[in-house]
């Protein structure tokens, strides 16, 4: 299955190349979404990378990508947001703007403060195994609503969650060597 899958990676700003490298290692096809005409390609899953959510939101809006992508997510397109990507998907954001607002979570942006608050952790993910987690000026999930499953917590703060075919992590699995979280996403696509 994985061999036939194609993943679109939002490539407006941020660490999208790192996600592409991860998908290369897993042997999955992918392409970059930088403007409206890139959506003419058929794809099976969407990755929203780390970066600045304010920049991505503005570019999504101005490049006419927001509405078509919201529609696809509502129709069940599997989506995986890391860090800024988590913010873009949250229905409520403290300290930031709403974007897709498709997932029943309340996120706190820059929840650990400035760069001096960035850190590494290693915690269990989705009842599988402990995975390395990189938090860069990261958010966390303050609370989850209906149909949301918590997949990881770090020091009592929610660091990963899933609602249907939407997956979010406050950390950056694309920055580590461990492919667990990306594999989990690919399995969600089926």
């Amino acid at each position: 299955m994985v061999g036939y899958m194609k993943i679109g990676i939002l490539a407006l700003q941020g660490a999208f190349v790192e996600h592409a490298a991860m998908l290369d290692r897993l042997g999955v096809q992918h392409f970059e979404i930088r403007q409206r005409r890139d959506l003419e390609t058929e794809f099976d899953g969407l990755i929203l990378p780390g970066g600045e959510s304010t920049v991505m939101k503005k570019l999504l809006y101005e490049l006419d990508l927001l509405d078509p992508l919201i529609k696809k997510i509502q129709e069940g397109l599997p989506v995986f947001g890391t860090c800024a990507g988590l913010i873009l998907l949250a229905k409520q954001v403290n300290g930031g703007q709403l974007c897709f607002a498709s997932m029943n979570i309340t996120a706190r942006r820059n929840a650990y403060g400035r760069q001096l608050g960035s850190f590494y952790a290693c915690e269990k993910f989705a009842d599988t195994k402990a995975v390395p987690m990189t938090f860069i000026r990261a958010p966390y999930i303050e609370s989850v609503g209906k149909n949301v499953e918590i997949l990881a917590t770090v020091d009592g703060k929610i660091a990963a969650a899933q609602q249907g075919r939407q997956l979010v992590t406050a950390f950056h699995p694309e920055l580590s060597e461990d492919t667990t979280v990306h594999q989990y996403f690919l399995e969600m696509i089926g």
Partner: protein
Amino acid sequence: MEKSRYELNKELAQMLKGGVIMDVTTPEQAKIAEAAGACAVMALERIPADIRAAGGVSRMSDPKMIKGIQNAVSIPVMAKCRIGHFAEAQILQAIEIDYIDESEVLSPADDKYHIDKTKFDVPFVCGAKDLGEALRRINEGASMIRTKGEPGTGDVVQAVRHMRMMQSEIRRIGSLAEDELFDTAKQLQVPYELVLYVHEHKKLPVVNFAAGGVATPADAAMMMQLGAEGVFVGSGIFKSGNPEKRAAAIVKAVTNYNDAAMLAQLSEDLGEAMVGINEQEIELLMAERGK
């Protein structure tokens, strides 16, 4: 600095990629920059063009002014210290700046030694004209590199020269035989391990932005096509006729730097660009500071 802290600092730079970092002098400008899509702002009292015009000794900005900008925006805030001025850097770390730019735009405080950046927890970005300078700064602990360009001129020629020089040296090292790398390390005055990294990965071990003289969407797109991973814009925005529009256009140009039709659209009706000065017309070459 622990190794893990250095890795985290390099990773913050990775998050800035594909973005535009804008010079701002007031909280109002910082908000304009954030709204226009800046991925970070550089807080400083005077933009390079005004530093150049004013002359005299140029120093780290007032921490109160920097804090005002930190409070005004939610994106990362950077600030500059003088080359070699580790006490200014300590002060910037104390106010929890997200990135320190040890910058040739300010008057150098030490004409021989750069700051030992490995002693700090906050990340540093440094300017470089060529691969040797870049790797020497990385060896001192810089976790991000930018071209020096020639700040405050609106003339992109030096940024182009520096980026081309770095990329061409990276290509050359990539093509060397392994036993030739030792001599290259000697010539560049950097540790063998850094040269080996460039040889194996065909890139710098840290993120590399373009800076110095970028004034238009076309300038930004050109730098991206030359291999920059993002762009600093200093005087180019707030010295122009319509800062909001120009800033937003440069942000979009960096995202779609290969799409000439979109770049054409973005370049329309931006109002007056900063006037600029040609490199032959200036007396002070900031890029010659700190090698």
